[in-house]
């Protein structure tokens, strides 16, 4: 006891970063366990594993006629899978499930007060829970994206191997992994805030989905008010735009990365302010 008190009091001279880090680590340990092992995690595993199984099944099935001629299209096909499945569905819905539940789920289960009854600043609780959600989503989807990307090139044998060893394969894989991490970061922060401020975060989440889905139809200045525009700008392979799309120049990579990081920080900041006013009144929920 005395040791703990001394340690904490030493840190009070400035900000107690050591204490905050220990508290964040404790929150992450509790939350990650729930995120990975909870019953709710089942449908998130489904979202994560579906493309891996589908692409893997095709990869390990007997080869098809004309396959070699399709090698050049594999990159475009994977870009389509990544942008339409991973970004708009898999990562999006998994982040809805994981991040909205971090606070709203605990309110519904009437267990949030246990956190509120500890000497943890509420802003620290937001950061800890957010990082636990990000670690969960990022771990699951980087594994999924990595496996599905590798499986995409398995049918092409040595040609596929050369694509990684001598071609752009590794670079593209790293780029997709980076976009995945940023997608979890950006969508995660937005859905965490929704779980904090809305009793039913599904409706606003669907509104975000709608906005992100019609992004290709929006004029350039409105495209920039979305997460998907910046994520697509960072993708290594550009997909052809549809006939109705309104074209806009992709964002430079540094703006896209800084923009997403800035959005995340701003949203987490708002969540930190919002939780300070939060009351425990389970009956009202």
């Amino acid at each position, binding site marked *: 006891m005395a040791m*703990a008190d001394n340690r904490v009091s030493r840190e009070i001279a400035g900000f107690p970063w050591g204490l905050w880090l220990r508290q964040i680590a404790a929150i992450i340990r509790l939350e990650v366990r729930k995120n990975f092992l*909870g019953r709710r995690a089942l449908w998130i595993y489904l979202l994560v594993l579906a493309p891996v199984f589908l692409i893997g099944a095709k990869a390990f099935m007997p080869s098809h006629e004309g396959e070699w001629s399709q090698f050049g299209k594999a990159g475009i096909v994977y870009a389509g899978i990544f942008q339409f499945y991973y970004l708009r569905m898999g990562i999006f819905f998994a982040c809805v499930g994981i991040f909205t539940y971090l606070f709203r789920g605990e309110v519904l289960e009437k267990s949030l007060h*246990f956190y*509120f*009854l500890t*000497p943890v600043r*509420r802003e620290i609780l937001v950061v800890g829970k957010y990082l636990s959600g990000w670690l969960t989503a990022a771990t699951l989807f980087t594994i999924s994206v990595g496996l599905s990307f590798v499986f995409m090139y398995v049918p092409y044998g040595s040609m596929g191997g050369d694509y990684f060893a001598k071609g752009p394969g590794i670079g593209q894989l790293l780029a997709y992994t980076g976009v995945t991490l940023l997608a979890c970061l950006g969508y995660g922060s937005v859905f965490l805030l929704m779980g904090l401020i809305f009793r039913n975060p599904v409706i606003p989440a669907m509104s975000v989905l709608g906005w992100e889905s019609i992004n290709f139809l929006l004029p350039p200045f409105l495209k920039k008010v979305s997460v998907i525009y910046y994520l697509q700008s960072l993708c290594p392979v550009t997909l052809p735009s549809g006939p109705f799309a309104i074209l806009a120049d992709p964002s430079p990579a540094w703006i896209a990365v800084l923009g997403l990081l800035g959005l995340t920080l701003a949203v987490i900041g708002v969540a930190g302010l919002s939780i300070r006013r939060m*009351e*425990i009144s389970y009956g009202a929920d």
Partner: protein
Amino acid sequence: MESNIVFDNVSKFYGEVLGVNRVNLSIAPGITSLVGPNGSGKTTMMNLMTGLLRPSQGRILVLGIHTERPDKLFKKVGYCTQYDSFPKGLTGRQLLHSLLCLHGRTQGESAQGAKKALEKVGLTDAADRRIAAYSKGMRQRIKLAQAICHEPQVLILDEPLNGLDPLARSEMLALFRELAAGGVHIIISSHILYEVDLISDRVILLNRGFVVAEGNIQEVRDEMKEHPRQIFIRCTKPNVLAARVFELEQGVEVKLHEDRRGLLVRTRTPDQFFLMMNQVVLDNDLEVEFVAPSDDDVHSVYEYLIGSESEIL
């Protein structure tokens, strides 16, 4: 350092519904009971003290700490709530260990603290079972362990005896006494008034969001001049004593006991009555077996001030 819990003109409204209204209190160390019917504002007061609710008006300081500073407040405060739900998938030991880690303690310190708290509430044998498999009484005990595991200076207990069997209740009351004797400031709410009466140094009586009375129960009773004091006496020749009661200016009523070995006196001047009784006993050689006020306990005060509108026992 401020050692009291101070409510400074505190009101809490849930929309248009009143929680508590214009509460001004300064609660000194010791065991303080919050007493009142359902909906009187007991839980609201406790939730306000711990920052789970924010006052609509006024401010609350616990040992000088504002309730909007959980990082400082919960180093000194433990709260056993009425909520009967827990984080999923944890054993009793894991819950306490995790909470102590949130207090900033190391893994080793947390393990030690969890073990000690589990021993105090008698849950050592069930420590490694999942809380979901606990009985109501065990869940109540683990909530108590959660409230005391970090050795707080202020312990707030909302109906802590609910769900406990008589033996466990008595053990818990002994634990509360032991903690209070060690200098812990205890605020307790309970429907079971005779248990409140056993352990409380003072009471706060609440009704419909208002503080009706507060203080040492004897002092509160003394202030209730409109209700004559009831005194029960077991003695020989009670009719002799009864006859003299009516000589008192403020004697109100006398009832002889059925077995003719005692009487119940209602008087507005108990001091005068006791003087007179001493004289009667000496003059008439009465044998007095027992003399006791019969309405200066929490239950009687509650009945007088609030009435029997709830399931108070």
